[in-house]
C-alpha cells in the first residue's frame, strides 16, 4: 500500500452559447439628459462581471469613458429579451447586441453634434474623454454633455439605439447530419498532478496548470479571476460535488447545504493560469465565452492523472475514494 503519483492531461474545444432554436439577445442604449449612457439588458450578472464588461463595450463603441455608462440588468419582465446568462454566452451575445445598439446611439449623437457645430456628422469623431471633435481640427469641439442637453431640450432627438444579436437556428443536413451548433469556440488545456493513496482511495491534487484560449480578454483581471475560480470548481466537480452519490437511489444523498461537499481553502491545488488571446471573428471586440469552459478540462485531466497513478479508469463523477477502492479491487489479480 502506497501513495502513488500520477499526471494527466486534457484538452477541450468549447462552444460559446447554444443553438437549440435560435439564440438571441437584445439590448437598448439611451443617453440621459446629461450625456451618460444607459444600457438596458435582461442578461443577468451573477458575479462574473457582466455589467462591467457591457459598460466597457458600450463605452468603447460610443467613445466615452466607462464610468459614463450605467448598465441596468434589473428585470426580465421589462427589459429587452435575452435567452439568459448560461452556456458562456453572456459576453458574446449581449456584447454584440450592445455594440449594435451603441453604434446607433453614437450615430444620433454625432448627428446632433453636427447640427450644433454646423459641420457634417461624418467629419466628427469622439476623443474618448467625453467630447466630440472635428477631425483634423480638434479646437472645434463640443462636449457630449452639451450634445445630450441639446438633443433633449432643443432638437427633440433621442440619443438611443437598438441592438439585436441572433445566432439563427442551424438544422442538420439531411444527408450527412452535419450542422453548425456554434459559431465561436474557446479552447483549454489542463495538466493535473495528483497523489492517490491506494489504501484509502484519497486523492490530493498537487498542481493544476491551465492554458485558456478565450479570444480577446476584454477585462484581463476579471478573466483571470473567473479562470482561477473555475479551475478550483473543476477539481470540485471531479472529486467532490454531487447531490446524488448513488443515483438513482436516494440513499445517502445530501439533504442540505451542509452535506454538499466542496474543497475548502485548505484543499487548494497549486494553480497556474495562462491566457492565450486569439480574437474571434464574430465576438464583440474579439471576445469568446470563457465562462463554463474554465471549469471543464480539470475533470478529465484529474481522471487521467488518477489512471496514471493507480491504473484504474473511473468514468463516474465525482471520483470518490470509494469509487477508486472499488475499481482497484475489481482490477486486482486474485
Amino acid at each position: 500500500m502506497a501513495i502513488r503519483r500520477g499526471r494527466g492531461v486534457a484538452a477541450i474545444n468549447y462552444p460559446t452559447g447554444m443553438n437549440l432554436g435560435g439564440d438571441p439577445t437584445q439590448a437598448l442604449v439611451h443617453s440621459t439628459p446629461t450625456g451618460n449612457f444607459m444600457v438596458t439588458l435582461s442578461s443577468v450578472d451573477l458575479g462574473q462581471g457582466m455589467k462591467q464588461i457591457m459598460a466597457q463595450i458600450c463605452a468603447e463603441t460610443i467613445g466615452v469613458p466607462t464610468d459614463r455608462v450605467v448598465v441596468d440588468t434589473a428585470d426580465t419582465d421589462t427589459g429587452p429579451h435575452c435567452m439568459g446568462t448560461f452556456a458562456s454566452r453572456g459576453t458574446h451575445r449581449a456584447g454584440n447586441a450592445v455594440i449594435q445598439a451603441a453604434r446607433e446611439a453614437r450615430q444620433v449623437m454625432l448627428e446632433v453634434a453636427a447640427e450644433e457645430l454646423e459641420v457634417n456628422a461624418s467629419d466628427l469623431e469622439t476623443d474618448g474623454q467625453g467630447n466630440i471633435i472635428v477631425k483634423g481640427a480638434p479646437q472645434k469641439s463640443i462636449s457630449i454633455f452639451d450634445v445630450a442637453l441639446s438633443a433633449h431640450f432643443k432638437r427633440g432627438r433621442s440619443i438611443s439605439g437598438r441592438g439585436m444579436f441572433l445566432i439563427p437556428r442551424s438544422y442538420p443536413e439531411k444527408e450527412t447530419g452535419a450542422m453548425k451548433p456554434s459559431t465561436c469556440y474557446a479552447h483549454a488545456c489542463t495538466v493535473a498532478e495528483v497523489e492517490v493513496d491506494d489504501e484509502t482511495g484519497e486523492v490530493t491534487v498537487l498542481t493544476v496548470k491551465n492554458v485558456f484560449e478565450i479570444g480577446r480578454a476584454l477585462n484581463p483581471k476579471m478573466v483571470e479571476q473567473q479562470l482561477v475560480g473555475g479551475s478550483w470548481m473543476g477539481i470540485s466537480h471531479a472529486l467532490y460535488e454531487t447531490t446524488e452519490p448513488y443515483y438513482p437511489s436516494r440513499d445517502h444523498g445530501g439533504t442540505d447545504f451542509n452535506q454538499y461537499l466542496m474543497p475548502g481553502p485548505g484543499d487548494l491545488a497549486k494553480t497556474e493560469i495562462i491566457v492565450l488571446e486569439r480574437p474571434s471573428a464574430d465576438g464583440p471586440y474579439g471576445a469568446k465565452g470563457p465562462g463554463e469552459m474554465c471549469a471543464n478540462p480539470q475533470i478529465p485531466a484529474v481522471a487521467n492523472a488518477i489512471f496514471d497513478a493507480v491504473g484504474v479508469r473511473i468514468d463516474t463523477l465525482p471520483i470518490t475514494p470509494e469509487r477508486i477502492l472499488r475499481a482497484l479491487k475489481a482490477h486486482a489479480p486474485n
Partner: protein
Amino acid sequence: MAKVPVQFTLNGSEKAEFIDSGTTLLHALRDKIGDTSPKGGCHQGTCGACSIIIDGELRLSCLTLAETCNGADVRTTAGLSEGGGLHPLQRAFLDAFATQCGFCTPGMIMAAKVLLDHTPNPSREEVVEALSGNICRCTGYEPIIQAVLTAARSNSQNVA
C-alpha cells in the same frame, strides 16, 4: 407570540427593537434594523455568510438569538469603513479581485477581521484556518487568502 425587547450597539450606535422571542440576530439585523451586510446562506451554521463580530468574537448570526445580545457590542461589515474610506481589508479584497457574486464576502471579511485583530501577522496556514468556516462558490479561495495576507502586510506597514 409575546414580543421581547432587545438593545445592543451595532457598529457603535445604540439599537433597540421589539422582536419575537426566538428571532435570530441575522433576521433582526437584516429585516428589523436594516443592516443587510450579513448574508443568509444556509441558516444553519455551515456557510459562514452571516458571520459577524459580537464582543470581539466571530459569531454566526443565524445561530445567535437576538435576545441573547442585550448589551452586546455587535459589529458587521457595514460598519467597517472609516470616515468614508474603505477598511484595509475591504480595499485588499477589491484589489485582489477576491469577490465575484459577493455573497460570501461580508462573512469572509468578518472572519479575516477577527483573525487580524488577534494575529496581525498571520501565516498562510493561519489565514486558511480562519477562513475554513466560510464557503465561497466563486473565487476558488486563493484570491481571498491573498487579500487577507495583503491586508495584514499593509496593517503592519502602517504600524511600523
